[in-house]
């Protein structure tokens, strides 16, 4: 027998679909000296892979989930371990039929063949469906059924053929870390197993529902919870058996009952996402020995499943007389935001997570993690939505995970609006103005953990003043108010006060602070004290990792201000690349500093009421930082940093001040601004309409790792001399000449649909197409799609942003945008701004 591997380059824990594919992909990328450990037997060690339904419906509105699902389906296909069964989602309600139009749009965006079916057409494909209870279907011929266990075996074998050692029936007892390299940090060093200890440089946790238990061994945290998905296998059914196939009919998803029916030889598997959320702590999962079936096939609780049986029989009468041969409460992993947990765990260096991944995206996500470990960031697609570093501390608790998983479990087959807000776990982080905003009727959107006013009901009077109205279709109107546009127009006419407390504010201090900041940023950080830069941070491959503002606060101090959606990732990126020589200190000032934005043509006049400072362009030039004292009347003087900048396209400032001083300044400005038309203004203007009119890019929307600054239109004329992450790739892209695609702003020329209703694209990846409806794809396979959509109240157009091939990026080019499966005329407006393109208002 081979000796126990006392050391390894990398230990992968978990031999389910993810762990197996991971060692396979790492091997393909040149890794050796790998060890794969699982506490269970092979090929089915007892995790979720062993009882998975093993089908892939490729269409998802979410880009990462869809494209990694398609990537996974292709990998199964390439191994000859999948069958294209086709799949039909059936609708019982008109709302679902409308949702199918949206799914057709997403299918078009991602290049997945799909079509809508009448009930009779559904029955032609699945003759045992009761057409009386359905209104129609959404059919994908490329829905596939895969053999995840055999795929895992093949990928594992690929690794073992190249030296990977596999330890089955071997339990991980501890993940050992050592302190460093920076104070307060730790680095993984060994894995203690029931068979011995393995010294190792890297550890990957790919053990599904047990992942957080393993992470906890290293004092790390992977925010996921084991949750029940009930399924029952019923049969025998002659009609299915007569096909002579494992899968002879398309899989049916009964979307409005959150249920599916999937043939398995002579039986039908009925699965449910409709039952009450049933969550377990990992310690409640039995061991392989203790489990009657397998650890993740927990005892069936039939009472929870009964309503699904009735609905299943309603749809397929033959199921009623089929015997329930096997039924389980199968465990799968849920996270607080329904996205996976991929990447290096922020708590411990070289400890990686490949968790909360289902069979349908397992091979693709394993590839992404393998690339991440190899190249510094995935190449297959951008995965920022799955990055485990995205979570804030408030999201890394059992209370949060359980609440959110309970809320979204029943939305697995739900109709979820792109702007839909969570009901649970609200008010986790609020700005210092929260109570004042509540009194003003603020409608809050939650940005990860932070509550931000999206609009204020107190501004209802502006709707009439500007002659605005609701949108005619409920879907377009959902999570929106005409007050949003009213606040926008008021800001353009007068001024608005925007709460930016959710900004994540970090500082680098010390003799090496500027040098380190230079290493992170594309643009030169070493500017004069009191100046700022707006800059991308790149991945090693030259794509966007971040896009933010850096301020030279002092000779040895650089402030970094970034958006709340990316704060966690940016914080981790900073800490992960920090020098370990003690020359730089990192501080998170988010809880100490609040930010208010004051913008609009009257902003200088308002601020002048409480400030003796020269607020002209000479005294406070665009991009400058000024330390000032603001007179807040009875509340005294408040010190603030004025940052002349704008993300909404009108003159004004971001004002940084001590958290506790915030309310006094808010009150003072609101009083001082009354005669100048100052209104509290919500995030709708700040993050959508204001920035759209200016064509400002947003990280996570326009800016992803798949695109570089040249394509985004954010490249400067020259490249700084100092080195930075991604520089080599960036230079190479510059040397290649004009970018293949350019970020453009488009206007929707006719918003009326075939029913004569005015429609409003939501920015949910709607494809931009040629006038005759053809998808637009570049040589890298990147599709032109809407990255942000929203109103442009000051230009009277609905606006879209999208990357377009250079030959289509000229103003005036006629194109189309697909929304709810209809093509609307769109026209390229500019690669810059449709409003105030020369920035005269910014610098007035």
């Amino acid at each position: 027998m081979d000796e126990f591997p006392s050391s390894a380059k990398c230990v992968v824990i978990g031999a389910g679909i993810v762990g197996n594919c991971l060692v396979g992909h790492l091997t393909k990328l040149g890794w050796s000296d790998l060890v794969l450990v699982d506490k269970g037997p092979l090929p089915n060690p007892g995790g979720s892979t062993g009882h998975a339904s093993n089908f892939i419906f490729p269409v998802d509105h979410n880009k990462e989930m869809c494209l990694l699902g398609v990537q996974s389906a292709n990998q199964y296909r390439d191994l000859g371990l999948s069958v294209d069964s086709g799949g039909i989602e059936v609708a019982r309600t008109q709302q679902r039929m409308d949702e199918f139009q949206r799914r057709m749009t997403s299918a078009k965006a991602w290049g997945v063949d799909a079509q809508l079916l009448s009930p009779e057409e559904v029955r032609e494909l699945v003759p045992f469906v009761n057409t009386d209870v359905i209104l129609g279907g959404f059919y994908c011929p490329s829905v596939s059924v895969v053999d995840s266990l055999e795929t895992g075996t093949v990928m594992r074998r690929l690794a073992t053929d190249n030296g990977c050692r596999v330890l089955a029936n071997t339990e991980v007892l501890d993940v050992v870390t050592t302190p460093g390299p920076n104070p307060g940090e730790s680095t993984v060093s060994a894995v203690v197993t029931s068979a011995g200890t393995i010294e190792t440089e890297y550890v990957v946790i790919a053990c599904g529902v047990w992942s957080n238990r393993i992470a906890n061994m290293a004092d790390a945290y992977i925010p996921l919870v084991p949750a029940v998905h009930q399924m029952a296998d019923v049969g025998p059914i002659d009609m299915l058996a007569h096909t002579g196939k494992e899968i002879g009919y398309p899989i049916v998803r009964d979307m409005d009952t959150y249920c599916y029916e999937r043939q398995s030889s002579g039986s039908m598997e009925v699965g449910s996402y409709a039952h009450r959320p049933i969550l377990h702590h990992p310690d409640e999962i039995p061991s392989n020995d203790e489990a009657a079936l397998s650890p993740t096939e927990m005892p069936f609780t039939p009472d929870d499943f009964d309503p699904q049986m009735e609905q299943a029989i309603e749809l397929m009468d033959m199921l009623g007389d089929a015997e329930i041969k096997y039924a389980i409460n199968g465990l799968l992993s849920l996270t607080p935001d329904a996205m996976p947990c991929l990447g290096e765990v922020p708590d411990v260096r070289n400890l990686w997570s490949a968790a909360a991944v289902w069979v349908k995206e397992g091979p693709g996500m394993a590839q992404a993690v393998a690339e991440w470990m190899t190249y510094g960031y995935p190449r297959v697609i951008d995965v920022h939505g799955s990055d485990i570093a995205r979570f804030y501390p408030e999201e890394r608790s059992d209370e949060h995970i359980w609440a959110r998983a309970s809320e979204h479990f029943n939305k697995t087959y739900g109709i979820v609006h792109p702007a839909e807000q969570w009901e649970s776990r609200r008010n986790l982080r609020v700005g210092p103005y929260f109570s004042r905003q509540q009194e003003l009727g603020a409608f809050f959107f939650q940005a990860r953990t932070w509550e931000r006013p999206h609009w204020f009901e107190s501004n209802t009077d502006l709707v009439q003043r500007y002659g605005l109205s609701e949108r005619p279709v409920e879907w377009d109107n959902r999570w929106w108010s005409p007050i949003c546009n009213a606040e926008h127009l008021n800001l353009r006419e007068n001024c608005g006060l925007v709460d930016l407390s959710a900004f994540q504010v970090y500082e680098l201090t010390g003799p090496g602070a500027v040098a380190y900041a230079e290493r992170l940023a594309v643009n030169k950080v070493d500017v004069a004290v009191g100046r700022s830069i707006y800059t991308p941070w790149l991945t090693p491959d030259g794509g966007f990792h971040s896009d933010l503002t850096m301020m030279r606060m002092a000779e040895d101090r650089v402030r970094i201000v970034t958006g709340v959606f990316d704060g966690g990732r940016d914080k981790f990126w900073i800490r992960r690349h920090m020098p370990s020589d003690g020359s730089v200190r990192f501080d998170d000032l988010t809880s100490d500093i609040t930010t208010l934005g004051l913008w609009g043509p009257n902003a200088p006049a308002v601020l002048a009421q409480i400030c003796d400072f020269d607020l002209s362009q000479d005294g406070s030039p665009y991009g400058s930082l000024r330390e000032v004292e603001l007179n807040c009347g009875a509340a005294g003087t408040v010190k603030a940093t004025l940052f002349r900048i704008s993300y909404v396209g009108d003159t004004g400032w971001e004002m940084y001040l001590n958290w506790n001083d915030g309310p006094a300044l808010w009150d003072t400005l609101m009083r001082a601004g009354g005669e100048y038309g100052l209104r509290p203004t919500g995030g709708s203007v700040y993050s959508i309409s204001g920035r759209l009119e200016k064509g400002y890019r947003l990280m996570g929307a326009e800016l992803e790792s798949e695109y570089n600054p040249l394509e985004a239109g954010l490249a400067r004329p020259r490249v700084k001399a100092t080195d930075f992450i991604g520089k080599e790739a960036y230079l190479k892209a510059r040397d290649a000449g004009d970018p293949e695609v350019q970020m453009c702003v488009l206007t929707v020329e006719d918003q009326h649909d075939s029913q004569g209703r005015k429609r409003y694209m939501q920015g949910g990846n709607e494809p931009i197409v040629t006038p005759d409806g053809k998808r637009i794809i570049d040589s890298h396979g990147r599709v032109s799609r809407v990255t942000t959509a929203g109103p442009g109240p000051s230009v009277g157009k609905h606006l879209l942003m999208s990357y377009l091939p250079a030959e289509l990026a000229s103003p005036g080019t006629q194109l189309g945008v697909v929304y709810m499966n209809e093509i609307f005329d769109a026209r390229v407006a500019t690669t810059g701004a449709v409003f105030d393109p020369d920035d005269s208002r910014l610098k007035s």
Partner: protein
Amino acid sequence: MRILCCIKRVPAPGAKINVAADGCSVDAAHLGFTTSPHEECAVEEAVQITERGGGEVTVLTLGSVEAGEQLRYAASVGAHHGVLVASDGSSWDPQRTARALTTAIESLEADSGTFDLILFGNESADSGGFQVGVRVACALGRAIVNGVKGIELLERKGEVEGKGQSEGKGEGEARLRARREIEGGFEVYEFGLPAVLGIKEGINLPRYPTMRGRLASKKLQITTLELDCVAGGQKLRRLHRPAETVSETSILGQGDTGVAAAVDVIEGLGLM
């Protein structure tokens, strides 16, 4: 025919059974619950008999309210009535259980008439006492055959070539032939009804519930009887989990390298 099946809710364990902290019960934290396998066969046999010849099947269990799940399961595969003899969920000794069941059966029979056949599992899957069926039969003064793996309802006496060992009481009496396995063969008993049988797994292959059957079982009206009976002399002191039997495995080699070693072993055993 009126048939009563006495069933028991028991844990559905995996390979390893953990003893609870009290030392007297099985740790059910990870366990589902089921009906003892012998009793599942008893229910199946009863349902088949009534499907062939008419009649009704009543299932009875002694246990906590959760045991209603097992009654419903029986209903989902064809039983018609369910009776729960309520207990506090603790484990009752065989004498106490038998007294309770006897009282319950007498009560049910007083209301609705004698059960032609009372079926028990040969023994329960958890405690395996082999006692309750026998005690109930004795208390009711009825014949019992245990270990039954075949039942044949006979034509009425006078139309049958009986073996003469039954307790037949005359023309028109229902009679039954029960078969049980013994080493090297079978024992066959014939007797008149009412009677009691201890059914053994293998007599049939119990059906799974259909989805319609499961849904129908939701409508089962469970009759609950509150009884208290004097405990018997048998007392559970402590459960002990024996040390795991470890079977040693030697890996002789992998692929071609193992062939020679395997040959050596086989030759060593004198098999070649």
